[in-house]
């Protein structure tokens, strides 16, 4: 079985400040890791993913996440946030090597960017 823990349910941050959204996972097999974003009144969109290779992955809008196998973490960071980053962020994991293709999600972190 696999699980995802997002330690913060809400994160307020001032505009142009840095932010880190924390994600830890538990799995007995190798995993793929994802961050999804849900903007207000919109559907889920893939923000970035780790499948293999470089442990640091980046999105097109300045977010990055680093896979840390020893700490079983996949924290999401951005050095300078914008108002438009206000959204709910979900960390997710899947273990295709175990024949499991469905995503297991964390409970989400609501990022509020304050002007």
């Amino acid at each position, binding site marked *: 079985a696999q699980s995802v823990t997002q330690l913060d349910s809400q994160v307020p941050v001032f505009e142009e400040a840095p932010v880190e959204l924390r994600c830890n996972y538990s799995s007995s097999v190798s995993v*793929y890791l994802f961050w*999804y974003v849900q903007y207000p009144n*919109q*559907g*889920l*969109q*893939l923000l970035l*993913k780790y*499948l293999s290779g470089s442990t640091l992955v980046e999105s097109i809008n300045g977010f990055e996440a680093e896979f840390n196998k020893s700490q079983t973490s996949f924290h999401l960071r951005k050095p300078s946030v914008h108002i438009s980053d206000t959204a709910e962020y*979900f960390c*997710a994991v899947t273990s*295709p090597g175990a024949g499991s*293709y*469905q*995503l*297991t*999600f*964390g*409970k*989400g972190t609501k990022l509020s960017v304050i002007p």
Partner: protein
Amino acid sequence: GAGVSQSPSNKVTEKGKDVELRCDPISGHTALYWYRQSLGQGLEFLIYFQGNSAPDKSGLPSDRFSAERTGGSVSTLTIQRTQQEDSAVYLCASSFRQPGYNEQFFGPGTRLTVL
């Protein structure tokens, strides 16, 4: 191209009634997933279809929930004898055929309210 579509966008029903929720996946996507997003439980996997294989029903919360996929395309999620705890947003996602990683694209969801 068209994304994943779901209907209805909103459904209000009375406790004890049956409901059907529809998902039209992206053309060519052979994998289809149903998830549920509720306030208390976050995002939960319900069921997974892959081509003509038997579906993975491991996430269905009770035998009141069922789903089918006709012709390898459209899927219907049925909830019988609805209960208030069934109130949630039901999300559908589709992807290209497994194995290997293929991004899941999510629909806008159906918001179900059970009175």
